């Protein structure tokens, strides 16, 4: 015989939606969803209404119209008779270029500064603190403008390089630092240079394979191979041999003063350099903090244990501390890369023609397609960010703790 009775059958009351914890969260979600949809639909209808009031339509056809303006830094063929779409592409490549260069330099700076900030050397540690705090706490735009201004105001103009002028080129007349940018020699690829490049690429692959081999061997036997020296040798050796065997097919074209400017060589414009340096120094300061935090997160016992095993400080850092610290460092590093990429849109401050300046600036201004242009711009940054974090996540997975 059972003593349990059925619980009294509850009838559902409306107030339960708010007061009953079983339903409350559902209610809140439904209401929030409703408000969200309402807000979105208001935005959309507002936009449509206002576009109609202005007599504008929504059309991406402008991308195929002639742009009519020139762009100084072009990684692909472009002139003023190209289309707005092509101008956007030129801008996109410029954005990617500065973002790529920036991420690399920022990482180098960040790792060095982060490690040095933990240095036992008082002066070095303090200097790094000054660097980190100085760059983290002053707006990026100011740094971009300051670096650009210093570069234009403190360097000679091409005119000064003329006969009898006050400036001269550096490194056997191969590099000119002027207030329009830095001119460096450009490689000229003659017949046979493809082979040299191929040999060089193959030796890169060789270095990679050798490192894997050395690591596997070290893990298996504990023997350490001189990876650094071998890599250095592989990096230069085969390529140099191929270079001379092929009869020196790659030569350099030196910048030369001609007319108003230097001609020949490669011009690294001040706008690119200033933007690149500012982005790298600024983001590097944040990365330094991530690195420092990552290293501090590895318990001191690990260092002591490594020392007790007789590992030298350098090896301790590279074999014990950094691999563990990386797990802490990588995730915030991804956001720093994303920040850097998006911050590169400040480029227009120094006249760097990134996608914000071409598509999001001149094109919008000449065609009046603000909405379309901004949507495309947003889409570009979104995709770029997703790709960067996707790639970085793959890397993160490869360094993260493998549970066995």
């Amino acid at each position: 015989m059972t003593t349990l009775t059925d619980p009294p059958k509850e009838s559902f009351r409306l107030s339960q939606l708010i007061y009953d914890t079983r339903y409350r969260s559902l209610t809140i979600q439904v209401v929030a969803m409703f408000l969200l949809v309402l807000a979105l639909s208001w935005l959309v209808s507002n936009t449509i209404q206002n576009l109609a009031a202005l007599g504008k339509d929504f059309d991406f056809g402008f991308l195929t119209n002639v742009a009519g303006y020139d762009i100084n830094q072009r990684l692909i063929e472009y002139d003023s008779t190209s289309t707005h779409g092509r101008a956007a592409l030129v801008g996109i490549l410029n954005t990617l270029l500065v973002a790529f260069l920036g991420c690399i330099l920022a990482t180098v700076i960040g790792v060095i500064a982060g490690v040095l900030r933990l240095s036992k050397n008082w002066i070095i540690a303090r200097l790094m603190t000054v660097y980190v705090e100085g760059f983290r706490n002053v707006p990026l735009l100011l740094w971009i403008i300051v670096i650009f201004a210093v570069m234009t105001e403190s360097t000679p103009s091409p005119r000064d390089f003329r006969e009898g002028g006050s400036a001269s080129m550096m490194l056997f007349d191969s590099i000119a630092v002027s207030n329009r940018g830095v001119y460096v020699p450009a490689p000229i690829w003659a017949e046979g240079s493809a082979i040299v490049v191929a040999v060089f690429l193959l030796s890169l692959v060789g270095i990679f394979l050798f490192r894997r081999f050395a690591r596997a061997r070290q893990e298996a036997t504990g023997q350490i191979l001189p990876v650094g020296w071998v890599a250095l040798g592989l990096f230069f050796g085969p390529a140099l041999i191929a270079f001379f065997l092929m009869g020196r097919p790659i030569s350099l074209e030196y910048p030369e003063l001609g007319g108003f400017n230097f001609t020949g060589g490669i011009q690294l414009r001040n706008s690119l350099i200033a933007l690149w340096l500012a982005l790298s120094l600024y983001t590097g300061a944040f990365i330094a903090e991530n690195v420092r935090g990552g290293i501090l997160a590895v318990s001191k016992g690990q260092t002591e244990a490594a020392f007790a095993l007789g590992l030298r400080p350098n090896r301790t850092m590279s074999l014990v501390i950094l691999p563990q610290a990386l797990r802490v460092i990588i995730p915030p590093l991804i956001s720093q890369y994303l920040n850097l990429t998006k911050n590169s849109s400040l480029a227009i401050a120094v006249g760097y023609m990134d996608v914000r300046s071409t598509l999001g600036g001149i094109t919008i201004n000449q065609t009046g397609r603000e909405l379309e242009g901004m949507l495309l711009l947003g889409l570009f940054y979104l995709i770029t960010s997703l790709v960067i974090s996707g790639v970085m996540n793959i890397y993160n997975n490869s360094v993260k703790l493998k549970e066995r």
Partner: protein
Amino acid sequence: MKKSVFLGALTVAGLAAGVAGAATLDDVKARGALNCGVTTGLVGFAAPDANGNWDGFDVGVCRAVAAAVLGDPMAVNFVPTTGQTRFTALASGEIDLLARNTTWTFSRDVDLKFEFVGINYYDGQGFMVPKSLGVSSAKELDGATVCIQTGTTTELNLADFFRVNNISYEPVPIETNAEAQQQYLAGACDVYTTDASGLAATRASFENPGDHVVLPEIISKEPLGPLVRHGDPEWGDIARWTLNALIAAEELGITSANIEELSAGTNNPEINRILGTEGELGAMLGLDAEWAKRAIMAGGNYGELFEKTIGENTPIGLARGLNAQWTDGGLLYTPPFR
């Protein structure tokens, strides 16, 4: 049921959105001030003086419209705009009137949906170089680095000019005139190009204006004028006829000095109509009878405004040239007030 609530909300939202951007005149009156887009600073055309009061030739247009509509030439909020931000500012309703050395072009009028209300300065694009370069013609500029303001007709004309003449150049895009000036003086570019009037104004602010020359070539037509948004023709009319009143006043000899005297009544019916002692012109615009009188009193007639801000006795020193009255061989010719 859910659907109809949703649709209802949509219509309400739509209605709310639709109300904005109706009659600009009412908005300006309700606000008590005219939002006028000007340059970020170009001495002679629009720049704040030592006391922070905006002054200049374009500013004069803003003040005249404010005087006509609100009765107070000082009731203007000046919104500094760059070549790139000006059109968005106007289209979005942030400003009611744009008076910023803006060239009247087909695409701005038709495609960008703006309404140019007239031309207050007939200009053309020129080049300025340091004398020391020894350049005497723009055709000698092959390979030069050229500073240009982005978002302007300037960069389009420049591209065309160099392409047609088959010479190369390196453009340095810059956002404002002040930055361009700094870059040019630092030698980061060999040449500065913009509207000839802008060049004159920029050069006037140099320490040694004599070290720089403006090359003889004028490579484009740049009719500069104030503009408003499409879609509010009444507001456009007010701006247009305020500008016309300034021009007509010069033609008819109405000056700040004699305007009080003339508004007692003259035997020239057009003067009487402008000054509101005859006819109903003000009422037709939705304004009072003395609208044009106040506009003229704000900064004087067109000629007075010109002489005070950019004329030959100012550091900028522009001659009237094309901007003289048609009766003096210029292009200023306002339709009759009748």
